[in-house]
């Protein structure tokens, strides 16, 4: 495993991300990761708040597009996240905080389709107690993912 991480770290791409003296390397990838966060966590927060009772006059059917928006944000961050990881794999791959963040993100990703299916059912589109539970969990999990992600820069 360590050899694999070392090989990744030594690769031409990882070296470019880490050491490239252009704003298109690390800075732009990191900024795209922040844009992805805004799309994913932002769209998720807006939908969670609606399910939890904020803006209860917003009809549910026309805001189902927030889910594909979440997947766009997630896709962007999976790609940019893998790029950022490649720049520093030995350090990140052995850091507890990074592993915790990954686990939290996985929980969040599982919650996305669960929440969608709890609201948009074949028989009816409605806020159910189950949907409220998933929405509250979602809000909590993506908050934790954002905080642990940001803290990776410090601890």
């Amino acid at each position, binding site marked *: 495993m360590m050899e694999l991480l070392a090989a990744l770290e030594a690769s031409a791409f990882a070296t470019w991300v880490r050491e490239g003296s252009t*704003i298109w390397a*690390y*800075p732009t990838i*990191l*900024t795209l990761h*922040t*844009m992805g*966060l*805004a*799309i994913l*966590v*932002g*769209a*998720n*927060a*807006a939908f969670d*708040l*609606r399910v939890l009772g*904020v*803006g*209860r*006059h*917003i*009809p549910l*059917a*026309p*805001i189902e*597009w*927030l889910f594909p928006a979440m997947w766009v944000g997630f896709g962007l961050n999976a790609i940019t996240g893998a790029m950022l990881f490649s720049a520093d794999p030995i350090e990140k791959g052995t850091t507890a905080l990074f592993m915790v963040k990954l686990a939290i993100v996985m929980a969040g990703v599982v919650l996305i389709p669960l929440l969608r299916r709890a609201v948009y059912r074949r028989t009816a589109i409605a806020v159910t107690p189950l949907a409220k539970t998933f929405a509250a969990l979602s809000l909590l999990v*993506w*908050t934790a993912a*954002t*905080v642990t*992600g*940001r*803290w990776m*820069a*410090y*601890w």
Partner: protein
Amino acid sequence: MTRLDVWLDAVFATTTLDESTIVFLKGTALAQWVVSTPWVWPTAEALHFLGLALLVGTIAPLDMRLLGFMRSVPIAALKALVPWAVAGFVINLLTGILFFVAAPDQYMHNLSWWFKVLFLAIAGVNMLLFETTQRSQIQAMQPGDDTPGALKAIGAVSLVSWLMVVYWGRMLPFLGNAF
């Protein structure tokens, strides 16, 4: 970018206002507290990113509606999310003040920060225009109606300027002449 940096340096060369502001802010008890307490900066950064997601996430659906998407959703219904955008903004204003007071030279002498402030101002003026000039337009709209050009422009300016605020904020450590 480089030419603009030279221009910014030239502006600051004509005044000592920046130096006296920096000295004053760094001497405040708030700045001392931020600098000397290790958990404050990382915690404020985490909150700043949560505020960012909350602000962008709750304002973007309204912007999309103003642009003419999801016409079956009443604009008034989407405005119920605005207080949450305001909450995100207030979190980021407060944490932003912490950063600025603790390290004023890193921000004042960085062109990226001035661009961020510029787009914040554009977003603010745009929001004021929306709140003060468009009320009757919105009330006259029927469910399913497309939005008039003025509302489309306001939605586009809002979406672009908030993304620009995020862009210049995140690029701040890498662009310009500070850090």
